[in-house]
């Protein structure tokens, strides 16, 4: 915060901006007359949550702009909710959406292909087919890629084969589920949980909780081990509280064991042939099912296109999410270097900031002030949920982050209704992005 910037009083703020902000909102049947570039072409790379939200909200904001979405897959499967596939409380089918509504309702030209390169000077996106798509504005929302070799011996080929990370929901989720269901009685499941920023901070612990719930019915003598490359995690108090109650966490007979980085928890090497993970302290852990969640980085596309500028993540202009490489290119979602959790809700709300920035540019006005919320409702079981509320308030060259996490409670009603709220949230969010 710069002290040289003028400080307006609260009343001045309301006087100067409140009335205009109120007058500018809620126009029913908004006219498109103000558009100067009627045929502006907005091209979006990536049909996940960030890309789909950009396409939908852009069309909500304007009827005539041309929108093209480039996505290699014919369908998208939501990650939120996909851990509940492991205890049979969710199906991948229910989490999977095609792009028909994008095409028909929102008039989006969906190209099923891979984006391979950006020609910034010509403002063209090159596709896998060799075709070039010209754009006025390009939005890149490709999600993350994985640093497989953080665990020596692990690879993309392993992930696609017998050692799925299942950190992008879909076929790998189904394979891991099948492996867990086929695990011998009293078998061992081991997970490597990453350090650094990764998508959905509580999700490794949620996954282990869903697996433990399933195994409590089908394989009650099985053991679950989390080898962690960090010492703290989101909702830790909630998970440990519940695991202590239900799974004897912290006792000799615990079903779930958590090994922090400081206690030698970092997995450094995979011996795939012997189904063994080796930790930083040299301990060898043989398991029936291994789930390595690799650390994340920006997508290969973003790195190859120079958007990451040689860094692990992609930087951006704080107010607009414009790339620092080219102001006609926007970057959002799990690949950006933002002081925000890597969640679907964050990506969807970054998309709305991008839409406002694009519309403002085309209308020749200053974009409105961004505001980005992330309200996460997570679960440990069907009868235990918890919430985290983050808001990211624009502060010039940065964001002001405020966060509250729900308290651990033994009140069964509060626990249960929080878990119900999580299911509510998942359903509503899927509709928000794809309906």
């Amino acid at each position: 915060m710069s002290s040289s910037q003028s400080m307006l009083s609260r009343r001045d703020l309301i006087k100067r901006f409140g009335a205009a902000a109120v007058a500018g909102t809620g126009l029913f049947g908004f006219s498109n007359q103000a558009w100067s570039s009627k045929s502006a072409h907005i091209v979006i790379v990536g049909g996940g949550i960030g890309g789909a939200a950009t396409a939908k909200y852009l069309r909500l904001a304007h009827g005539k702009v041309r929108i093209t979405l480039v996505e290699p897959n014919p369908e998208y499967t939501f990650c939120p909710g996909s851990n509940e596939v492991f205890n049979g409380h969710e199906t991948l089918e229910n989490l999977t959406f095609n792009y028909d509504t994008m095409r028909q309702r929102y008039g989006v030209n969906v190209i099923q292909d891979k984006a391979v390169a950006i020609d910034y000077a010509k403002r063209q996106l090159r596709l896998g087919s060799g075709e070039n798509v010209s754009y006025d504005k390009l939005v890149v929302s490709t999600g993350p890629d994985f640093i497989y070799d953080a665990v020596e011996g692990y690879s993309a080929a392993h992930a696609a084969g017998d050692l799925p990370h299942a950190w992008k929901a879909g076929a790998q989720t189904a394979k891991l589920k099948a492996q867990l269901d086929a695990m011998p009685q009293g078998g061992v499941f081991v997970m490597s949980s990453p350090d650094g920023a990764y998508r959905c901070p509580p999700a490794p612990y949620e996954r282990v909780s869903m697996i433990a719930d399933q195994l409590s019915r089908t394989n009650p003598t099985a053991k679950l081990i989390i080898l962690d490359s960090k010492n703290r995690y989101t909702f830790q108090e909630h998970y440990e509280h519940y695991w202590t109650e239900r799974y004897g966490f912290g006792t000799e007979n615990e079903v779930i064991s958590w090994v922090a980085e400081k206690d030698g928890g970092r997995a450094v090497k995979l011996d795939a042939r012997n189904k063994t993970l080796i930790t930083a302290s040299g301990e060898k852990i043989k398991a029936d099912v291994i789930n390595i969640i690799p650390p994340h980085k920006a997508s290969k596309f973003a790195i190859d296109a120079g958007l990451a500028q040689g860094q692990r993540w992609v930087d951006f202009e704080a107010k607009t999410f414009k790339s620092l490489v080219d102001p006609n290119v926007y970057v959002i979602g799990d690949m950006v270097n933002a002081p925000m959790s890597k969640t679907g809700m964050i990506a969807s709300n970054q998309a709305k900031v991008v839409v406002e920035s694009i519309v403002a540019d085309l209308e020749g006005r200053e974009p409105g002030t961004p505001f980005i919320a992330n309200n996460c409702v997570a679960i440990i079981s069907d009868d235990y949920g918890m919430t985290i509320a983050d808001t990211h308030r624009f502060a010039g060259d940065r964001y002001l982050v405020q966060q509250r996490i729900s308290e651990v409670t033994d009140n069964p009603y509060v626990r249960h209704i929080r878990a119900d709220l999580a299911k509510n949230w998942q359903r509503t969010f899927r509709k928000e992005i794809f309906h």
Partner: protein
Amino acid sequence: MKIKNQLLKTALVACLALPGLVIAAEAKLSDAEVNEINAQFPMPSGKMLGDSCAACHGTLGAEFNEGMPPLAGMDRQHFIDLMKAFRQGDFPTIVMHDVAYVYTDAEIEAMADYFASLPAEQWPAPNITESAFLNPDGTIKQIGGAQ
């Protein structure tokens, strides 16, 4: 019943100072400090604020079939009264007291105007063709306006 202020963490995290440079600084912030930072920039519009609620309350707040209440078409004063009560922790909620505490009076009023302007109707499922949100040909109307 008054819910105890349970602010666990208020952090100021710097995002981008210079290209490629990320400064992360954490500090406890008072309401006055938050207000001071807010006063330097135009207030986010009611649409910007309101649309960030959509993951839980539906597109344009128009999810009428779930536990989280719809906001589209909500009475302006009712919205304001509820949000201020959440903000003050006047009664126990599942999550809204942890959400509402960040908003100023003016922001709450801007959101109230935005939601009051929208039709109180369920956001159409893909197989629905007749809706206040759709044109006769099934394409989306420009509802909710620009910023």
